[in-house]
């Protein structure tokens, strides 16, 4: 197993400008993104945020893994849009724009659908950029400097660390079960393999806690840190600019009462129908693909 594969799935080692930014400065941006995304209903702002996060990917050299990670947005986003078109989350009366089979399509909810989608896409993309370019230990070290309780912080770091271990364990157990004649594909095969993984996990956690305690974990004295995370002037600038810009925009949005610009945008009935068809196709495509994978023996 290569060293890279043993590292948490999330972190893509590298030395780009983005990788070198102080974790706290990055965290300021992620938190700012989430705050702004949930305080505004302005889709121009939301999709600009998403685009900006996307543009960071080639700079950090993480385009491919980022897009792969973002695939999760396909079923989420498509179901969200399709649902808003057949059952808008706005007050009636709704104006029908078309019919497909037994379904009546409405244009009233589509703006809100795009807002919800934009919030998720923008926050998730930037969070992924952060996670993929930050060494968990550096984040851990920085957080402890911010006086985040050590234990909580450690649990976060541990979780990140255990993901690849469990992945590998599932792999080992599945191949063991396959060698005993169990079919090794699909959900029906994965499920029983979680039992030994789970049992193994309890034993692992118990041994680990003894091992950690035996190395002084949990002592109340002053702690030092081996990884030295620098806070250069550029990190301060990035952090402060992020806080001011994102905080300012959030404040402005709240002052404008969510800054909803739906009245300025008219979605043509054709656009609504096409959006619905694409979303529904994507969504059922994903579902069918998952079912197909699980049935394939």
């Amino acid at each position: 197993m290569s060293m890279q594969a043993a590292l948490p799935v999330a972190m893509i080692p590298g030395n780009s400008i983005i990788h070198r930014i102080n974790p706290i400065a990055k965290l300021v941006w992620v938190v700012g993104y989430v705050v702004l995304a949930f305080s505004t209903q302005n889709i121009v702002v939301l999709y600009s945020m998403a685009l900006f996060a996307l543009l960071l990917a080639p700079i950090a050299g993480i385009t491919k893994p980022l897009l792969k990670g973002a695939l999760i947005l396909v079923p989420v986003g498509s179901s969200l849009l399709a649902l808003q078109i057949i059952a808008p989350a706005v007050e009636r009366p709704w104006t029908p724009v078309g019919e497909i089979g037994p379904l009546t399509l409405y244009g009233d909810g589509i703006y809100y659908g795009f807002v919800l989608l934009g919030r998720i896409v923008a926050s998730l993309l930037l969070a992924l950029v952060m996670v993929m370019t930050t060494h968990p230990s550096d984040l851990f070290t920085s957080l402890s400097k911010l006086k985040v309780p050590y234990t909580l912080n450690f649990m976060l770091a541990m979780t990140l660390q255990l993901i690849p271990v469990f992945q590998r364990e599932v792999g080992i157990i599945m191949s063991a079960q396959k060698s005993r004649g169990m079919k090794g594909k699909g959900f029906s095969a994965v499920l029983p393999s979680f039992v030994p993984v789970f049992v193994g996990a309890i034993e692992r956690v118990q041994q680990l806690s003894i091992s950690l305690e035996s190395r002084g974990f949990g002592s109340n004295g002053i702690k030092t840190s081996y990884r030295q995370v620098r806070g250069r002037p550029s990190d301060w600038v990035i952090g402060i600019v992020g806080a001011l810009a994102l905080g300012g925009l959030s404040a402005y949005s709240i002052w404008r009462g969510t800054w909803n610009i739906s009245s300025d945008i008219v979605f043509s009935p054709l656009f609504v129908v096409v959006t619905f068809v694409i979303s529904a196709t994507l969504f059922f495509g994903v579902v069918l693909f998952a079912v197909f994978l699980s049935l394939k023996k």
Partner: protein
Amino acid sequence: MPEPIIAFDAVTYTYAGTDEPALHEISFEIQPGEYVAILGLNGAGKTTLGLCVNGVIPTMLGGELEGTVTVGGLDVSEYPVREMSKLVGVVFDNPEFQMSQMSVAEEVALGLENAGVPYEEMKRIIPDTLELVGLAGFEERSPLGLSGGQQQRLAIAAVLAMKPQILIMDEPTSNLDPIGKQEVFDMAARLNSERGMTVIVIEHEVEVMARYADRVIVLDGGRVIMNGTPQEIFSRVEELAALKLRVPEAAELATILRTEYGDWDGPVPITTEPAVAAVNDLLGATRD
């Protein structure tokens, strides 16, 4: 006689939620700098005994402890494990279960960070410790990408960095191949002879223990049933066999030869070289 570094005085321990004690009336002493092997079948109480030394029993696991365990003059039931960790380092059989960090250096640093060792000192201690366990230059590697033997030596380094006086290894090589086993035992022997560290090894490899240990303690059903030098213990071949415990092959061979060819002078050989010498003597004698 110097003050013992570890003393068990009539220790009986029962795990929480069980009725039968896992340890019965255990009493023994270990002197500083001794290399002690603990033998016993599965379930004999070896791990339980080891956990008493660093205070995981009773502080972390609860249960009912009678008698006293004194380590470095401290009653273990009165100190948290993290205090005891300054005295006692423990390594378990599955090294991977003891890893929690992203890099080898950080794994070694963990105990130092918790002890508040300044960064500059860590920069010095970490390479030194890795050197000691034969992992020099591995600082930036991922612990999960190491071989089993390397992982186990890293687990040992992680406790050694804290400079404990006592190292306890619970079946440290049961997941390792012969080379990995050799690496770990050589290192433990070096720590014992060169640094005067007190070493307690829980092991099934009787050949290795016959060679390295100063003392062997045999547990059965939670009781200490033998306690003596390897020479004394491994000479009792029939008794050990009756307990279904393994015996060094040299001692077994010598015992068979003895019944076949009558007695000879001197002790029963327990390692290969004296066994070879004894067989040579015997062959010389029959040839005459």
